[in-house]
């Protein structure tokens, strides 16, 4: 006899289990289920199918890097080191070999304008040479809106391509990581963030995480960044530059797909109150 359980361990009556075209079971609330046989057990159980990054379905990581003049010096160096280590960490996930990347990376720099860094245009992470990364901080303004709008345009195209994918509910949700040491002094960043956060991969929204660099004294607008993030808990205060590197690596290569999971990850890995 087959028995079915949700990921929370709640048993689903067999009569309530429906199947999709491939015969895979779905729960009564349309939660996808999968079956497996536990070692040493004869009964079959079902658990919720989770969004998992793998080579056939990589997770898109979008990094929005503040390159305004105030970031010059140790801050931009820490940011480059953090992005490089995030790429290195992402490269070590999963099996080796060409075409096996678990992640794709889109790197956008922004100051008064925003642009995609050449060589980081949504490319598989294993194709990136981490040593080649360079960023210069010499912009005269900080324009969150431009960065968020550019990210949204790329994400719309990306999500449209995957809209009809049969496994869209197990694809990892794209993550957008924005860090800055200033206040947005152009446009309407909250409107741009709201529009971006409405994008969905299947049934789940794109996740936006923000980090505000307060190290050494800065004019960072923490309240704005907190509201820009998917959840207030998805904001991270960066009080020292080592934390910026840790945040980029742990969040960027986490493979997690929900704002709640990422907020828990941030809470669990840093001592800074958010």
């Amino acid at each position, binding site marked *: 006899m087959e028995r079915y359980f949700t990921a929370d361990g709640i048993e689903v009556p067999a009569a309530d289990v429906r199947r999709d075209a491939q015969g895979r079971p779905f729960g009564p609330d349309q939660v996808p289920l999968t079956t497996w*046989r536990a070692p040493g*057990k004869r009964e079959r159980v079902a658990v919720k199918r989770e969004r998992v990054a793998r080579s056939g379905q990589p997770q898109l990581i979008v990094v929005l890097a503040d390159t305004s003049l105030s970031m010059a010096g140790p801050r931009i160096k820490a940011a480059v080191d953090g992005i490089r280590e995030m790429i*290195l960490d992402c*490269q070590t996930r999963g*099996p*080796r*070999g060409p075409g096996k990347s678990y992640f794709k990376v889109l790197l956008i720099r922004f100051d008064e304008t925003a642009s995609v860094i050449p060589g980081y245009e949504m490319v598989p992470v294993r*194709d990136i040479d981490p*040593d080649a990364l360079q960023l210069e901080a010499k912009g005269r303004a900080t324009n969150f809106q431009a960065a968020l709008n550019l990210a949204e345009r790329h994400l719309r195209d990306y999500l449209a391509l995957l809209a009809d994918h049969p496994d869209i509910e197990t694809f990892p949700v794209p993550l957008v990581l924005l860090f800055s040491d200033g206040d947005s002094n152009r446009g309407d960043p909250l409107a741009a963030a709201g529009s971006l956060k409405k994008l969905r991969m299947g049934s789940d929204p794109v996740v936006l995480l923000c980090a505000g660099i307060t190290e050494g004294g800065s004019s960072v607008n923490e309240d704005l960044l907190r509201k820009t993030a998917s959840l207030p808990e998805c904001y991270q205060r960066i009080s020292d530059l080592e934390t910026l590197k840790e945040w980029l690596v742990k969040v960027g290569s986490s493979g997690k797909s929900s704002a709640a999971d990422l907020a828990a990850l941030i809470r669990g890995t840093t001592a800074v109150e958010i």
Partner: protein
Amino acid sequence: MTSPIGWLVKYLLHRHFAPFGQVPPRHGSTHLTDDRVLAVDWSTNRGAPGTEKTRNEDAARWGFLATKAGPVLLLALADGVTSSSCGFWASRVACAAGLRAMEEPARRAYDEDGPGVSTHRLSTVIEAGFTGADTALAGILNRLRSEPERYWSRQEEPHLATWRYVLARGQVMETTLCLAMIDPVGIIVGSVGDSLVALRRCRSGETCDVVIGAPDEGEHGTAALRGDDTYRIPPESFTRALYATQDYEGTAALVLATDGVARHADASSLLDALCDRRPRPDGWARQSIHDLKGRGAGEDNMTMIGVTVRRAALEETGCEAQQALR
């Protein structure tokens, strides 16, 4: 073309371990019943084509050790960690070094104590095997670290920065390892990692199945041997799963299987299949693995060593081994 690390490992294998065994000429399912087979060394790096894991990085090795107490069968099965560089070489090295490190203490134990060697002493033989495998992996990792550019495996890591990164973090040459020893009286098995280890023994007309190690359900956090001192497994947890029995009567069966589809397999079913002495049609093992896909295994792979032990036969230097590969 073989990578630099490939040449290095081949050189070390040849220098230290090559005389031990032989390499069967082809992949596929094999049924070995030839009593004259005294040692086998087999590795496979072919996963399910067109899927994520096109390499399975598995290795197996077994052979008889002649002692004054009679023949003792030594077995090793290893599975390179997927997220580690050069896992294929790691599993080969671990099997070869593990068995080689077991030889001398095992021979000494049986020569001195006879067939009734204590479980404690046998466990020290297994631990010697794990220590030997770990030391061999550490030696290779140190060589790689000493000259990262010279031994840079471009097939594994296309960028030198990534190669240096994984070397620094010890994410190179990681592997699981199962070691087992079977004599006419007892069986002892140890495992580091997420292999399936299951034993069936008969006593007083009843059979008893024991699952000693089971595959992890998660993708991350597999315990593994790695050559890095920083991450080295403490000696007390070398044998995460250690089991010994000295009371089987007549027959026993032992299954060692790498994770892969084994995490969807039922240990009792595998033991049933192993104990079923009827002849198998060609491709039976492949079909059995295919059937597991229906249980959620997907396009994965598995390497299994199955051993059925007939006490009388072992005493006459007879043993039957089956290996199913995909």
